[in-house]
């Protein structure tokens, strides 16, 4: 018989070392007595007579991943047999049963699954039922302290959860099987501790939590069995709110009886008729009100400096809708002031439209970009983003009441029609529901064309579209 002595608690490193040695020597699990953990070993007296020490530098054992994961949780269990069971599992996995964990009905696998489940549940309950209390440091700094009594050796295993969640706080967790301390930078594992005195003495949030707990309970549904299944009594001692449970259960039937017996009472207050009537008038009533809403709203994709609102007067005959503000528009807060905007202004003039007489706006109100070094590269809005902004655009046009809407580029056409439009193929007059309209290209498309006859022709076509828009308005007027 070989005797392996591990440290108290969850000695994963010790177990790994021992396992490597045992596997290297091919020791049968029946030949090993393990000690360590909560219970003193029965085999404490047995020396490793005649067997010699385990090799210190045995190579790692290659195990199926699920077996490795199972070992990591099961070593946390307080069952003194855990190491022996795990050794047996490894022994079998290495002797032809590599997918042993799929044999759910196998007694060994089943027993280990139960241990695994118990540890997971314990971890989960510690994440759930541990309560921090704020303790005042002499220097007034925010610091938190908790006391918890887990069933198994899970204190180290639970640390990543608390560090991740409360990384920005300074806290200490004390338990009877070890402690954790986090100072916002590093984690320290400490020895077992005793329950600290007067934990929630001056923490008013602890009191607030108890009041909340009592208020959120519905006495008409009292069901203590269901509660105890998930929150067994053993946890109550460390949950401040649990002190109220007996009284809550006791008073529930009387509270319900009173509710059922109470006659329906006539309202004591007068019906707030005026307020109810006023409630219906919530839509923005003017363009200025709508613009205030747009300005206060957050961009859908974070990054933009500000919302760029439409420009021009209400009642303008022509509304021109672009895609979204660019880099320069984002900084200045005005539409069409960048290179594409300048090109648009020139083309409008050539088409006989005065820029100041038109209403200019964008389908999407915020600049979307990716940062490349110092430069902010424009990114087209997605169809979903266009739909987010569509409600505003429609309201906006509703206030402006143009006689005709010109859409520049595919995004604007999508916003007005709700479908994807091939601008080059479908350019020209198109109905947009309540408005008649003209579809044309976006001036930034013209800027991207290589200089030459093709680009010149494209510009002339653009001006022609705008001219047609003007003629449609004049014809209709």
């Amino acid at each position, binding site marked *: 018989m070989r005797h392996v002595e591990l440290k108290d608690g969850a000695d994963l490193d010790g177990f790994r070392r021992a396992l490597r040695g045992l596997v290297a020597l091919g020791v049968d699990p029946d030949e090993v007595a393990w000690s360590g953990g909560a219970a003193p070993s029965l085999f404490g007296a047995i020396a490793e007579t005649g067997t010699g020490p385990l090799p210190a530098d045995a190579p790692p054992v290659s195990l199926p991943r699920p077996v490795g994961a199972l070992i990591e949780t099961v070593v946390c269990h307080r069952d003194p047999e855990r190491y022996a069971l795990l050794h047996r599992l490894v022994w079998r996995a290495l002797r032809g049963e590599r997918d042993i964990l799929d044999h759910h009905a196998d007694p060994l696998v089943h027993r280990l699954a139960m241990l695994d489940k118990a540890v997971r549940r314990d971890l989960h309950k510690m994440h759930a039922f541990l309560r921090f209390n704020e303790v005042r440091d002499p220097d007034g700094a925010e610091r938190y302290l908790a006391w918890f009594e887990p069933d198994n050796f899970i204190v180290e295993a639970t640390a990543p*959860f608390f560090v991740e969640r409360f990384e920005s706080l300074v806290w200490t967790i004390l338990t009877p099987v070890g402690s954790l301390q986090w100072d*916002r930078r590093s984690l320290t594992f400490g020895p077992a501790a005793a329950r600290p005195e007067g934990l929630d003495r001056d923490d008013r949030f602890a009191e607030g939590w108890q*009041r*909340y707990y009592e208020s959120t309970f519905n006495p*008409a549904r009292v069901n*203590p069995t269901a509660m105890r299944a998930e929150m067994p009594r053993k946890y109550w001692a460390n949950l401040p709110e649990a002190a109220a449970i007996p009284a809550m259960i006791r008073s529930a039937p009387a509270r319900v009886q009173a509710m059922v017996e109470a006659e329906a009472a006539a309202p004591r207050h007068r019906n707030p008729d005026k307020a109810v009537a006023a409630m219906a008038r919530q*839509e923005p009533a003017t363009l200025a009100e709508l613009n205030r809403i747009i300005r206060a709203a957050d961009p*859908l994709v974070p990054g933009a400096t500000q919302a760029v609102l439409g420009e021009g007067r209400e009642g303008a005959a022509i509304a021109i809708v672009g895609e979204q503000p660019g880099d320069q528009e984002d900084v200045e807060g005005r539409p069409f002031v960048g290179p594409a905007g300048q090109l648009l202004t020139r083309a409008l003039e050539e088409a006989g439209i005065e820029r100041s007489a038109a209403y200019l706006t964008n389908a999407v109100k915020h600049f979307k970009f990716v940062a490349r070094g110092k430069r902010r590269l424009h990114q087209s809005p997605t*169809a979903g983003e266009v739909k987010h902004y569509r409600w505003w655009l429609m309201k906006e046009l509703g206030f402006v009441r143009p006689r005709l809407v010109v859409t520049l580029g595919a995004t604007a056409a999508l916003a007005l029609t709700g479908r994807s439009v091939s601008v080059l193929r479908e350019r020209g007059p198109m109905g947009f529901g309540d408005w008649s309209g003209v579809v044309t290209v976006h001036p930034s498309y013209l800027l991207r064309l290589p200089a030459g006859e093709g680009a010149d022709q494209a510009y002339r076509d653009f001006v022609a579209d705008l001219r047609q828009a003007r003629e449609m308005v004049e014809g209709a007027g």
Partner: protein
Amino acid sequence: MDDALLDKLEILADAAKYDASCASSGAKRRTGGPDGIGSTTGAGICHAYTPDGRCVSLLKILLTNYCLFDCAYCINRRSSNVRRARFSVEEVVRLTLGFYKRNCIEGLFLSSGIIRSPDYTMEQLMLVARTLRRDHGFAGYIHLKTIPEASPWLIEQAGLWADRLSINLELASDRSLKEFAPEKDGTSIKAVMGQVGERILEAKEEKRRFSPAGQSTQMIVGADASTDLSVLETSDTLYRRYGLRRVYYSAFSPIPEASSALPAKPPPLQRENRLYQADWLLRYYGFTVEEIAAGGESGMLDLGIDPKLAWALKNRERFPVDVNRADREMLLRVPGLGARAVDKIVEARRHTSLRLEDVARLSSGLKRARAFLIAADHHPGGLTDRADLRQRLVAPPKQLSLF
């Protein structure tokens, strides 16, 4: 936290508790890092249970219980004489962070009575979420109950900050809604569900964050005359058409200051329980609404037994099934076998021919399942067809309700 705030907390938690949902699941993983606070884990955590057996996961409060609407089933309707209170945006933020830092909650479930206008109210809700996220780097869970009468843009802004949005349908039929909630309108509620569902799908495709844990709703059962069949048909439509993540059922509960329009006595809590079981069969076990309803009588589920057993008892010709041979779909229909147990069975039987004691290790529901199962060493014989099978399987009824 001063006394005045404590009092408000009591009123506004009391007013919020009739919403059944408290789930904090389904969020994408996220952490607050060294400058923020909090994390979401995906599965969600229940930080306590109240003596009604319900999970306390989120700080579930109303921004205010003043309300201009007059929904008969609701304790906060304008004609009720309940005590009223109102939080400021800042106060909700402070409470959420305070409880969160003490590890009492996973986050916030915020809802509100309607004050001034639906838009004003919705904006206040949105501002709470935005302040938590943007000004405090809060990475915990946020569930906002949207006001369906608010403007679309406000609901869409809320989706930028929340993990989950919910829109309560409250009553299964449009007619009941008209009768009990005169200011509400079933068609527009569903239109908003459609809008939110569309935004969620688009955001997922375009890899943006918009209510990443989906949307949910709640229906009150037992306040109107809707049958279980019509409730389940509504749920089925909501799951299919609007991609809802969850439908919650809430047995109408007697409230202080009840309206005379409602029944004084609540429906048995068991009805709610059966609806949840039926809902699971619908979503994870391949049952149709018609099959589930056929297990009961005239559109109501059998309160005495769970809907899967009810279906099996009426379809005995399909049993017993062989645990070593039947396909997954059929195993899922065996009373007592849950989806997890079925998956383990399918995996384990590849290695060995399963006997009854093996099945017992994989499922805790063997007592019910054995009458419907063939195993290597077991055949139920005539048991499956015995006239008194139901009596044999059902423990004497336990009264859940206190009445």
